[in-house]
C-alpha cells in the first residue's frame, strides 16, 4: 500500500477501492483564486489522476492573504495563476498530472475542452455568474457534475449540481445576478474560503469515489462572523421547461447572443465589455459603492467613471463597460468582474 494515501484509505467510505477510483479521475477547475487554490491543493493531495486548471489572471500581493498556493515570488513575477499553481502542485504531489491553461473559460473554450477530454467533474472557483452560467450549460450538456462555491466577507455557500438528478443553476436563478458584493468590494477572510473549499471538496470526493448516496443534496450557506447556518433541499425548484436541464434544452449561455462579448477598441487603448445578459444599474449607488472603497468615482445619468490604479473603468447603466488604459482583454475582464461581479 502506498503510504501517501494510507490515512485516506483507512477512512471506510473511501477505502482501497475508493482510492483507486480517485486515481482514475480527471477534474477541471475553473478559476485559480482563493477557492481554486484551496480545491486544487485538496484534490491533488487526495491523489486524483489529472487536474486541469483554467485561469486568466496573474498573482498579485492582495492574493497572498488567502490564495494558498502562491508565494511572494509569484506576486513579484506577476506569474499567471494557472502556471504558479501548477508549479506548486507538482511539488506537492508529482503523481498527479497537472494541466495549466492561461486564458478565459468562455463558452467556446470550456465546451471544447469538456467535449474533447470528458472530465469526471467540474469545480467552480470563479468570481462571477456569467462564468457559472456557462459552466452550468456545459455540465448539463455533457452530463458532468459540477460544484458551485462562492464567498464574500464571512459568508459562503455551496451546492453540488448533478445532471439528471438535481435542478440546475438556471432553475435556481432564472437570471444572472448582478451588482452583488464581491471580494474586492466587501473583502474576504480566509476561513470563509476554507469553509467553502471544505464543502466543495467533500462533495467532490463523494462524486469521485462514486458514493452518490452520501451527497448532501442541500444548498448550504453559512456566516462565520454572525454564526448563522442554513441548508435547503432545493429539488422542488427543478423546472421541466428549464432551457438548461428541462425536456428540450437549448443551453442558452453557449449561444453567441448570450456570451460576454469583448472588443479591443482600435487606437484607444481600451477594451469594451458587454455582459452576457443586460444589467440594470443604479449609477449613483454604484458610484457610492466605489467611493466607499476609497476609489475616485463620478456618475452622470448615463455612466459611472472610476479610476483604478492607472486604469479607468467606465460603466453604463445596462452593464456595458469600457476599460481604459489596456488593450489586454483578459486584464479588462478581470477588472470588470472584480468590481462588478
Amino acid at each position: 500500500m502506498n503510504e501517501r494515501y494510507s490515512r485516506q484509505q483507512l477512512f471506510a467510505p473511501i477505502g482501497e477501492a475508493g482510492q483507486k477510483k480517485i486515481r482514475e479521475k480527471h477534474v477541471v477547475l475553473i478559476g485559480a483564486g482563493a477557492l481554486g487554490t484551496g480545491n486544487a491543493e485538496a484534490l491533488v493531495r487526495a491523489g486524483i489522476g489529472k487536474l486541469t486548471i483554467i485561469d486568466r489572471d496573474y498573482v498579485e500581493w492582495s492574493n497572498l492573504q488567502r490564495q494558498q498556493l502562491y508565494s511572494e515570488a509569484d506576486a513579484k513575477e506577476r506569474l499567471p495563476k494557472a502556471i504558479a499553481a501548477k508549479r506548486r502542485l507538482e511539488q506537492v504531489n508529482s503523481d498527479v498530472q497537472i494541466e495549466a491553461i492561461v486564458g478565459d473559460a468562455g463558452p467556446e473554450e470550456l465546451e471544447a475542452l469538456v467535449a474533447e477530454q470528458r472530465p469526471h467533474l467540474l469545480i467552480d472557483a470563479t468570481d462571477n455568474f456569467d462564468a457559472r452560467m456557462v459552466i452550468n450549460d456545459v455540465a448539463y450538456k455533457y452530463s458532468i457534475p459540477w460544484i458551485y462555491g462562492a464567498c464574500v466577507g464571512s459568508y459562503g455557500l455551496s451546492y453540488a449540481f448533478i445532471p439528471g438528478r438535481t435542478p440546475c443553476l438556471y432553475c435556481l436563478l432564472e437570471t444572472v445576478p448582478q451588482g452583488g458584493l464581491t471580494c474586492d468590494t466587501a473583502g474576504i477572510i480566509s476561513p470563509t474560503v476554507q469553509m467553502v473549499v471544505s464543502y466543495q471538496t467533500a462533495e467532490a470526493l463523494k462524486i469521485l469515489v462514486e458514493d452518490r448516496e452520501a451527497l448532501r443534496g442541500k444548498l448550504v450557506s453559512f456566516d462565520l462572523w454572525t454564526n448563522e447556518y442554513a441548508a435547503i433541499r432545493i429539488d422542488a425548484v427543478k423546472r421541466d421547461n428549464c432551457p438548461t436541464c428541462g425536456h428540450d434544452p437549448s443551453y442558452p449561455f453557449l449561444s453567441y447572443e448570450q456570451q460576454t462579448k469583448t472588443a479591443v477598441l482600435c487606437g484607444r487603448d481600451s477594451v469594451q465589455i458587454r455582459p452576457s445578459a443586460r444589467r440594470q444599474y443604479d449609477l449613483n449607488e454604484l458610484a457610492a459603492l466605489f467611493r466607499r472603497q476609497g476609489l475616485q468615482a463620478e456618475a452622470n445619468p448615463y455612466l459611472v467613471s472610476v479610476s483604478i490604479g492607472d486604469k479607468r473603468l467606465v460603466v453604463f447603466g445596462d452593464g456595458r463597460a469600457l476599460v481604459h488604459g489596456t488593450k489586454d482583454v483578459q486584464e479588462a475582464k478581470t477588472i470588470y468582474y472584480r468590481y462588478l461581479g
Partner: protein
Amino acid sequence: MTLIVNGETITVPDEVKTVSDLLSHFRLDNKLAIVEVNVRIIQKHEYGITTLANGDRVEIVHFVGGG
C-alpha cells in the same frame, strides 16, 4: 413575532408580515435568494403573499458571486 431564521430564534418588528417584508428587514430584497418556510420552498412570485406566523422556521440562502 418570533421566528426561527437559519436556526436562530429572532424577534422581528410588527411590520414584518410576509416573506417579502422579512427579506427587506434583512436587506436581502434586491438579492437573489432561496427561501424555505417550514420546509417548503417559497416561489419568488409568492413572497408578497406568503404570510409568516409566530414560530415559523425560515431558511434563507442568498447568492453571492465571489470566489
